[in-house]
């Protein structure tokens, strides 16, 4: 819900390239990642948007059609805790689109190596489940979810397993060091809102402005949205532009280039946060003490 006054104010401000929160048109809200004490527990805030991701692992039977691969599911359930516009247990259109984009970005892009999750071909494999909880909604849900899930996958460690013939023994986390997941690349989602700025008198469209990372208020005024998921190897993992205002092909290519720059920043941010968390867990340098590696080998 937005009043006509608010809408006009926003569009007039965009015409002179100003946004409500003072950011530039190409500035994304800074993301902050904090890890919980358990592996795979991630809290990500992006401005006012808050997202919590928990990664868990379970041993199960693999899909009949793919006996050499594990299973990876992403579960996003947006409830009214995030915002009153969402309903609990009801799949509104917006939720379907968000969960589909997240699934394409994180699951179908092959970020997680599924073959590494196989334990006994055709019989046992790991099922990695990412549960995303939305605590607060202020736009940018897809971007936040994607970054949080990827950070969680990098952070998570699954228990080590011993395979003896057909029997699988799961080792305790205390006895044997848990094993990190095999993540192949880091897809980062970037969402642009498209605004049709019209001349007030003639009601003709002057230009279409692309604004990075819209907040909830900006989302209500936008005419269309485009979500680009890209990784630091310049691979576009997915693009989703449901209809609304049309833009030329070359502008989409430009947006991808800008999205690539953003992806580099987010990748760096996640790497940094992971390193800090690693150092904190490694206080006292116990890993070096417990390691059986010989000093002879230079690192």
């Amino acid at each position, binding site marked *: 819900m937005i009043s006509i006054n608010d809408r006009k104010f926003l569009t007039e401000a965009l015409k002179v390239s100003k946004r409500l929160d003072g950011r530039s048109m190409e500035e994304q809200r800074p993301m902050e990642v904090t890890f919980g004490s358990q592996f795979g527990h991630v809290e990500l805030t992006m401005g006012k948007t808050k997202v919590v991701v928990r990664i868990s692992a379970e041993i199960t039977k693999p899909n*009949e*059609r*793919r*006996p050499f691969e594990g299973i990876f599911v992403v579960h996003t359930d947006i409830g009214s805790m995030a915002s009153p516009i969402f309903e609990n247990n009801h*799949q509104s*259109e917006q939720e*379907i*689109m968000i*969960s*589909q984009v997240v699934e*394409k970005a994180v699951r*179908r*892009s*092959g970020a997680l190596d599924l073959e590494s999750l196989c334990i006994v071909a*055709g019989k046992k494999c790991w099922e990695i489940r990412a549960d995303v909880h939305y605590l607060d909604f202020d736009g940018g849900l897809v971007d936040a979810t994607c970054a949080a899930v990827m950070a969680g996958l990098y952070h998570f460690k699954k228990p080590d397993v011993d395979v003896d013939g057909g029997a699988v023994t799961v080792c305790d986390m205390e006895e044997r060091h848990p094993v990190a997941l095999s993540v192949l690349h880091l897809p980062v989602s970037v969402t642009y809102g498209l605004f049709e700025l019209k001349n007030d008198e003639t009601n003709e469209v002057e230009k279409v402005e692309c604004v990075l990372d819209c907040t909830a208020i900006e989302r209500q005024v936008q005419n269309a949205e*485009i979500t680009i998921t*890209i990784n630091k190897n*310049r*691979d*576009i*993992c*997915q*693009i*989703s*532009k*449901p*209809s*609304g205002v*049309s*833009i*030329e*092909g*070359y502008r*989409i*290519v430009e947006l*991808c*280039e800008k999205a*690539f720059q953003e992806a580099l920043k987010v990748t760096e941010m996640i790497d940094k946060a992971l390193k800090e968390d690693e150092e904190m867990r490694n206080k006292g340098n116990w890993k070096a003490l417990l390691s059986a590696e010989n000093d002879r080998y230079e690192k």
Partner: protein
Amino acid sequence: MFVWELSDTSANCDSFWIRRGRLGSDTGTLDQTHRALLPSYSSPLTQSRHEIYSPEGLRTDGRRWNEIRNFDCKINTHPTSADGSSYVEWGHTKVVCTVDGPREPDNRQNTTDRAVISVNVNVASFSTETRIKRQRNDKRLAEMNILIRQLLEEAVLTKLNPRTQIAVNITVIAQDGGLLPACINAACLAMIDAGVPLTDYVSACSSGVYSNNALIDLNTLEEQDVPFLTIGVIGKSDKISMLTLETQLPMASLEPVLATSLSGAHAIQDIMDAAVRKHGKHRLERK
């Protein structure tokens, strides 16, 4: 030509489907001359490895990189049971579309100042090579419904019919790649037949890239192997209204792929226009 394939790779083959190989090719070039069917097409599994794009520039069904499959469309195929209807055969993908409306809406909540469009895509279990029983809460179908609906809302002058509903029912009876573009094209034709006011033709086309070669209009085999995207455009503009990409595409290939699919979508509009005019002429002459 006949091949059988295992439906699952389990060690004990309890059950498997048989696939009829395709005879001949089904191409249409961008300047609308249709190629003759190639008589000696050998199905992919009898060759050691099918080539998506051979060194001579031929694809699995004998097309070149810039040739779309045969696009055959008819409108007003269901004169009694629907307000507007169309039938699209794009290569081996066959789609029937009916439009009912503008009519009394199912719920009046959100229709005060404009018409509400509802889209329902029904995929038959026998439409694919392997029979797949349709799931009821299939999110992919729900997403397709939303994409088609939003694209149509962009082109339809909904403000001219407030407090009404336009129901679009798309039934897919055969699939061979290019499902979303075929549905969109069929929906546009059916809307025209129903007399719903549109700003311009709505068309869609898919295209992908294989080792630096852009390929237009992919069939199932190509869609499984090659990253591809689908665009939807309104009118013959260079502006893209809808874009979906679900597979990994290197950024350098984005521009040629977009350009290829744009030209494909424009070519489709010409074919649709010809079919609509033919039908119009037929109706005028019938009196």
